[in-house]
């Protein structure tokens, strides 16, 4: 999709000598400038926004990151930080060109401490790789976005990632004990550490860093809180004839004292889509499905699962399956987490939204989403984290058709406005990036927007780090454009 943002026109061409300096710093293989190499960096998991960077640099250590950021500062180059590139908001896209700093070589798991229940990890470690290592110690790091097999920890911290299990276990910010970051001016700074306190600071800067979407600095290392694995897991799957019936059941499920680990919803459209695909798992067609996961010490888990069954039956559940078989669980999660991929196979383009609402307003929200989309004949499919109230409407369209594109943009805006009107927010786990920037003023008053801008004024006043994202008007004006901010 062509971007309408003004920053795309304000590019800062590579200055002579910068590429050579980057190559001598990180090695020639780790600085990419050929168009076919840069193509892999022109978009993210959303695939709606395409902007080629002028160069990509892949530093191999925190010290190299520091020196790269310092070089880019001296050369007045926009700098976009990137992890696995799996984000769904256009966050790591070089909207003003410049240099993408790809942190994938910082992939050391420095330390796993089973005694004090933390790990020390570099920012480029893949989330699933970390959990594989932790499993050997009987531990886990709970945030689990669907992109876990390929997303980096740096990306998950930058987006404050959630996933299917954060109703019980919380989101990324609840697990970041400390972090190391290279600030925009090239200064390294550590906030917190393995003990998870304030480390002498009077302000909680760490709270601003987590979820900062690459606007405040380049993360190089984290200390993350770990927890023991939860014991026995039971998975329940049931169908309901209507969205209302399913989501009323969710309101009771989340009150169960075991605290369900996951409460997921799939609408009948996504259920039918899965059942028509090779990933079919025997879901009841034309019905809404909820998946609930209960985990606990073995002696308690089955009792909790049976109580959950009773709740579901009371709400008129159809086709109830309760299982502790790992293979059943794996198949259900494969279907649920693979649903997004299936959409990619049946539609040229996809716009996924990420609103969070009070659970009591979900039915009203979803009814409006379907009504609006059906009225303009744009297919919409919803599967989401119902326990958290975190809704993901997926609009299917073809961006080569200008009329469809316009309809989808209008639907997205209406959905976001409705979410805000119902007491919700614009994002629960995907972040704002480029995609939702234009909606920020739906949620924030002018005063609240000014407070948000104050954070970038403190750390990245000229917007050189990740320009054109999160807050409108964040354009980097370099000296080669004639004006310096």
């Amino acid at each position, binding site marked *: 999709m062509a971007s309408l943002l003004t920053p795309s026109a304000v590019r800062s061409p590579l200055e002579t000598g910068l590429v050579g300096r980057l190559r001598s710093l990180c090695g020639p293989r780790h600085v990419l400038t050929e168009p076919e190499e840069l193509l892999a960096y022109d978009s993210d998991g959303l695939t709606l926004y395409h902007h080629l960077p002028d160069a990509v640099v892949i530093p191999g250590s925190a010290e190299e990151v520091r020196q790269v950021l310092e070089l880019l500062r001296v050369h007045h180059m926009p700098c976009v930080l990137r992890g696995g590139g799996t984000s769904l908001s256009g966050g790591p896209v070089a909207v003003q060109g410049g240099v993408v700093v790809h942190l994938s070589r910082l992939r050391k798991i420095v330390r796993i401490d*089973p*005694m*004090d*229940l933390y790990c020390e990890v570099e920012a480029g470690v893949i989330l699933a790789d970390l959990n594989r290592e932790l499993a050997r110690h009987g531990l886990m790091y709970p945030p689990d976005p669907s992109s876990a097999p390929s997303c980096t920890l740096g990306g998950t911290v930058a987006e*404050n990632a*959630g996933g299917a299990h954060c109703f019980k276990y*919380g*989101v990324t*910010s*609840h697990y970041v004990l400390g972090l190391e970051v290279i600030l925009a001016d090239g*200064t390294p*700074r550590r906030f917190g*550490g393995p*003990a*998870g*306190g*304030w*480390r*002498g600071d*009077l*302000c*909680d*800067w760490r*709270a*601003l860093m987590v*979820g900062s979407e690459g606007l405040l600095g380049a993360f190089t290392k984290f*200390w993350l809180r770990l927890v023991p694995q*939860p*014991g026995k897991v039971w998975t329940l799957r049931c169908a309901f004839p209507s969205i209302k019936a399913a989501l009323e059941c969710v309101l009771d499920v989340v*009150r169960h*004292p075991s*605290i369900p680990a996951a409460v997921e919803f799939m609408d009948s459209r996504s259920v039918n889509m899965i059942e028509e695909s090779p990933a079919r798992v025997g879901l009841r067609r034309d019905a809404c499905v909820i998946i609930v996961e209960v985990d*606990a*010490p073995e002696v*308690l888990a089955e*009792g909790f699962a049976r109580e959950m069954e009773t709740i579901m039956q009371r709400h008129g559940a159809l086709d109830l399956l309760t299982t502790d078989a790992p293979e059943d669980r794996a198949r259900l999660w494969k279907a649920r987490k693979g649903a997004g991929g299936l959409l990619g196979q049946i539609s040229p383009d996809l716009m996924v939204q990420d609103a*969070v609402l*009070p659970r*009591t307003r979900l039915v009203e929200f979803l009814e409006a989403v379907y009504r609006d989309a059906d009225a303009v004949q744009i297919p919409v499919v919803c599967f989401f984290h119902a326990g*958290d*109230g975190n809704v993901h409407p997926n609009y299917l369209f073809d961006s080569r058709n200008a009329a469809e594109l316009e309809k989808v943009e209008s639907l997205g805006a209406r959905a976001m406005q409705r979410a805000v009107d119902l007491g919700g*927010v614009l*994002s*629960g*786990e995907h*972040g*704002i990036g480029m995609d*939702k920037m234009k909606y920020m003023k739906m949620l924030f*008053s002018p*005063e609240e927007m*000014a*407070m*948000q*801008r*104050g954070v970038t*004024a403190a*750390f990245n*006043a000229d917007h050189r780090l990740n320009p054109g994202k*999160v*807050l409108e008007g964040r354009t980097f004006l370099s000296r080669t454009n004639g004006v310096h901010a």
Partner: protein
Amino acid sequence: MSRFAPFYDPADMTACFPAEASVADINARVVEHGLFFPLWLEESKSPLAHIRAGSHLPASHRFGALADNILGLNFRTARGISVRLGNRTIKNCTGFDLAHFVLNSRHPLGEVTDVILRLRALPGPLRWFGCQLSPDRIEQFRRELGRSPWWHIFEAVEVTVRKESLTLWIGLRGKEEIQIAAREWLNSAIPSSLPIEETELNGMALDCDATVKLLPSEGVEQAWRLVESFGGHARLHLTNGFFRWSSPNAAQATGELAALRNRCIENGGHLLSPHLPEKLAADEAQWLDRLEQAWETIAS
């Protein structure tokens, strides 16, 4: 100017209360719907008072930090502008997390006037299992718990430290069969013939001479050392190395506290004490200056 209107949505398990409402008042209001604000706190004080006293980091073993259970705020800036920070949803990554930044910061940035709380289903009264153990045995138990799924079941895992004894307390809610199973596991995990008793335990008092955050494995030893050397008593959240210490002799302990503070800081922890002044680091002062300058333009 904007603010969240007061609300209470029992079905959504969220509510907006004035910042000065005590934990007891909040729980009295929501108990009729089978809910509670789950953090085990000094009930006569407000959640905000706990935060201001620096006690908010680890409030409950099961439900996490106090601040993580506060979803949003009405906030009045230093220039008197009312704004909303955060929201009422249990997930939110819409812009910078200013709600938790202002909640957790000890530098005065303005005034919190209302808090939006995440409430939980109340499974029954909190019951305590306690026993006296040596510091080594308590540490052994902590390590055992850190490998067990029971970690996710207990609501509080506390230690009271006095010169004459250390007592480990396990707080748990739930039905009789959960209590029985929990006691069985505790009996197997605590390698001791000491009896396990049931008793009442109050929330951790806010007034103290030091609030300390260390690595979990250091907590018992350091709390014990302070009590042994300077008397008084300490209360420790065993699983995260957080404790509060009070002693009539605390003024004589400034050297010890300063050394302990350095040790905390080395590992990213902290030690707050009325006996030790704090000062803003140069980089923090610079960031705050820029932030506050930007926020001041709101009023003009």
